[in-house]
């Protein structure tokens, strides 16, 4: 007997078809994975169960939850179900909580709104639930506000809120996508434990196949609003019967073909770099306390080399990057590119700046939406002076990254995320730099697009002899595209070495913990020979 049985679910929003023929069956207490790329309809499926679809939506079919069809229930009944029998947590923990209310009030509200407890009881339950999700009373009193917590802690509060009334089904929509690997591992562990201890079914929505492989008993793969394949997790991963599933799994493990470059001359030399921030004074007369975001970092990047920099958010990677790019001054140490000193601000010669370019994470936020692609790609020419054949060079750069020269007349909103990242690479390439800093450059991309962009980067590196500083929190990507890797923690490089050596035999406890925390598809599942056909 399924807890949730969905058949023929279809959805249109303002007449545009979003979902069709969605069939799912989730048993009580099981962890069910729903995977797919962005835009495949995973979140809309979940919102359809919750009755929280956007305005103008029309859902048809059947979604039987405990014998009731969720799609036909009146709003009044749905508000009783939500938070009580079905609960949901979302991707972005930083914005999922009301910034004006204490965490205790927000957890207790779940009980209060369902009239399940008096005020005092609700607070007692809130305390109990926060303890359960790993936020003990001594460090996390009910009176804290969300802004006093980290992302992982906020996600724990969101979970406490969702499980306050011990729902039968918890829907988790990309619950760990915005979190670091070690935090992700803790949150996934918590969710797994909750499903087991509280006999709660968990619908885990994610783009990350490794997370599903690690967590779910059953899995459904979605593409373009349809479920293309569903079944028990292990056989599905082993058999890879559907072409799309196979492509997804292959893409997620993709290693671009690349030759390690012979060590060239030293290109980027960072020695003893220190970057400090002043914090607000604790009292009017006290000196400003200092935060050392980068604490004596030294390394060398050789021409044509690919160097990885991994670490969790807040470890100082981005601060270090800004200093390398000459955007912020150092408080100690020095950075040299070739023979020249990198300084921040106007003192730094444009010719030196032109030798390094950067590609950022967000393909949506890093372009001016009012400029055409031609102007966007030609922008770095202000460092070198605009050549006469600028237009031809833009066309050539677009061609090199796999776009059409005709695309230069378009605006950025006409492109997909992957295409935008290609345009960002074209922009970096156009003035033929020696070094490209890739700051989480593929982190926002779906696996198949990510594989293509990684191939492109590998190809360009060979053809142009580029050096990459590849910054990412995604260990598997760093492993597949870099020659050497550095692990950063609390402003320091804690381990450094040849990539394979560091990944196969990490020396530092922190590196070991990072690698252990990253979810992986079990190696045994990659041999399709002994696949058990369902």
């Amino acid at each position, binding site marked *: 007997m399924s807890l949730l049985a969905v058949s023929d679910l279809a959805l249109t929003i303002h007449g545009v078809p979003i979902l069709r023929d969605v069939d799912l069956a989730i048993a009580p207490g099981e962890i069910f994975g729903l995977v797919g790329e962005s835009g495949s309809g995973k979140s809309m499926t979940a919102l359809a169960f919750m009755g*929280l679809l956007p*305005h103008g939506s029309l859902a048809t079919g059947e979604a039987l939850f405990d014998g009731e069809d969720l799609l036909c229930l009146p709003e009044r009944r749905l508000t009783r179900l939500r*938070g009580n029998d079905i609960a949901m947590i979302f991707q972005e923990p930083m914005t999922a909580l009301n910034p*004006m209310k204490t965490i205790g009030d927000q957890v207790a*509200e779940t009980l209060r*709104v369902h009239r399940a407890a008096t005020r005092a009881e609700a607070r007692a339950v809130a305390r109990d639930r926060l303890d359960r999700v790993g936020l003990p009373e001594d460090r996390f009193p009910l009176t804290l506000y969300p802004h006093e917590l980290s992302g992982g802690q906020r996600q724990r509060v969101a979970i406490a809120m969702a499980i306050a009334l011990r729902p039968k089904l918890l829907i988790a929509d990309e619950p760990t996508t915005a979190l670091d690997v070690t935090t992700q591992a803790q949150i996934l562990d918590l969710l797994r434990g909750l499903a087991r201890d509280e006999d709660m079914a968990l619908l885990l929505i994610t783009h990350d196949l490794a997370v599903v492989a690690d967590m779910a008993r059953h899995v459904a793969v979605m593409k373009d609003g349809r479920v293309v394949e569903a079944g028990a997790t292990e056989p599905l991963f082993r058999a890879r019967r559907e072409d799309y599933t196979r492509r997804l799994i292959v893409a997620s493990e993709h290693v671009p073909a690349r030759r390690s470059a012979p060590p060239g001359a030293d290109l980027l030399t960072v020695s003893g770099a220190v970057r400090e921030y002043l914090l607000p004074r604790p009292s009017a007369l006290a000196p400003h306390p200092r935060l050392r975001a980068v604490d004596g970092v030294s390394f060398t990047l050789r021409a044509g080399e690919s160097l990885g920099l991994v670490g969790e958010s807040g470890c100082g990677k981005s601060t270090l990057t800004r200093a390398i790019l000459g955007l912020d001054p150092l408080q100690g140490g020095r950075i040299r590119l070739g023979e020249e000193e990198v300084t921040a601000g106007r003192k730094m010669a444009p010719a030196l700046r032109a030798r390094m370019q950067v590609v950022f994470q967000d393909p949506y936020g890093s372009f001016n939406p009012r400029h055409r692609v031609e102007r966007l790609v030609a922008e770095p020419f202000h460092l070198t002076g605009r050549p006469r054949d600028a237009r031809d060079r833009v066309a050539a750069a677009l061609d090199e990254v796999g776009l059409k020269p005709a695309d230069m007349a378009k605006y950025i909103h006409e492109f997909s995320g992957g295409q935008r990242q290609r345009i960002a690479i074209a922009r970096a390439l156009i003035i033929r730099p020696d070094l490209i800093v890739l700051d989480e450059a593929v982190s926002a991309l779906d696996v198949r697009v990510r594989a293509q962009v990684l191939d492109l980067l590998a190809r360009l590196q060979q053809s142009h002899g580029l050096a990459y500083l590849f910054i990412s929190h995604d260990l598997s990507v760093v492993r597949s595209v870099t020659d050497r890797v550095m692990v950063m923690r609390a402003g320091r490089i804690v381990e450094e070495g040849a990539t394979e050596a560091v990944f196969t035999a990490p020396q530092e406890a922190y590196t070991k913990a990072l690698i252990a925390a990253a979810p992986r598809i079990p190696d045994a599942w990659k041999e399709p020979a002994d696949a058990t056909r369902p």
Partner: protein
Amino acid sequence: MQRYLVRRLISLVLSLVVASLVIFAVIEIVPGDPASYMLGLNASPETVAALRDRLGLNEPVPLRYLHWLVGMLQGDFGQSYTYKVPVAELVAQRLTVSLPLALLALLLATAIAFPAGLIAAARRGRAADSAVMGATQIGVALPNFWFAMLLVLAFALHWRLFPAGGFPGWSEPLAGIRALTLPAIALALPQAAILARVLRSALVETLGQDYIRTARAKGLTRGQALVGHALRNAMIPVLTILGMQFSFLLAGAIIIENVFYLPGLGRLIFQAITQRDLIVVESVVMILVFAVILVTFLVDLAYGAIDPRLRKRA
């Protein structure tokens, strides 16, 4: 919270000092000698000089500024040149009209704007929203003195529910409130329209936030999420507008005061300016600046009370 308070207080005092300097300087530059104005066209130069001396107008400028400042700190705002009474007394008298009028208008504006803004936000994109937005558009566009005359025609002359003008004083509180009712309505409507629009747009923005979705996923109805989560988050822009409106209502009611023959602050300044009663102008403007800065200070405190993040950061 304490540091937040101290910082706000320091900025309050500094603003006052700067404002007093600006006001004093402007009055110095304005042409027209109060002494010759008070004595009329036929006064002899000797009499004028004597009066200038008595008024202290012959002292050096920095000294006069200092006298003025110290006097104000002691509650002595000087003597009105034309009324021949202490400015403090004059202002206090006028405030008994202007302050209740401003408060009443603000109360009315809030009482109209909050339900209107909430309804429009809750039913955004639908008929009720369009109706409220249309009405506020009209409310913003109508000149309030014209609307005041309509009110007089209807409620004072036709139905005889309220007096058409004048102010009987507070010896009979009920009569006083009745006299202020129509002017307060005339003042409140455009303010209500602006406030309702600000509230609606702030609410619509907060309703799109992730935490509203979280609240709905917990089982809150749309209305509960609106009042329980969106409203407080939308209060920052609303409070900003409210503070500005109060300051405006305190002194900016001059046209309405004229329509209803109310002895308020606006009319006092207007008369003082036309009669070169510079000491009154100086002092009343200073008092108004003080009121505005005080209101801003209170609004800042309210921000801190509403938003825990502001308390922390400051």
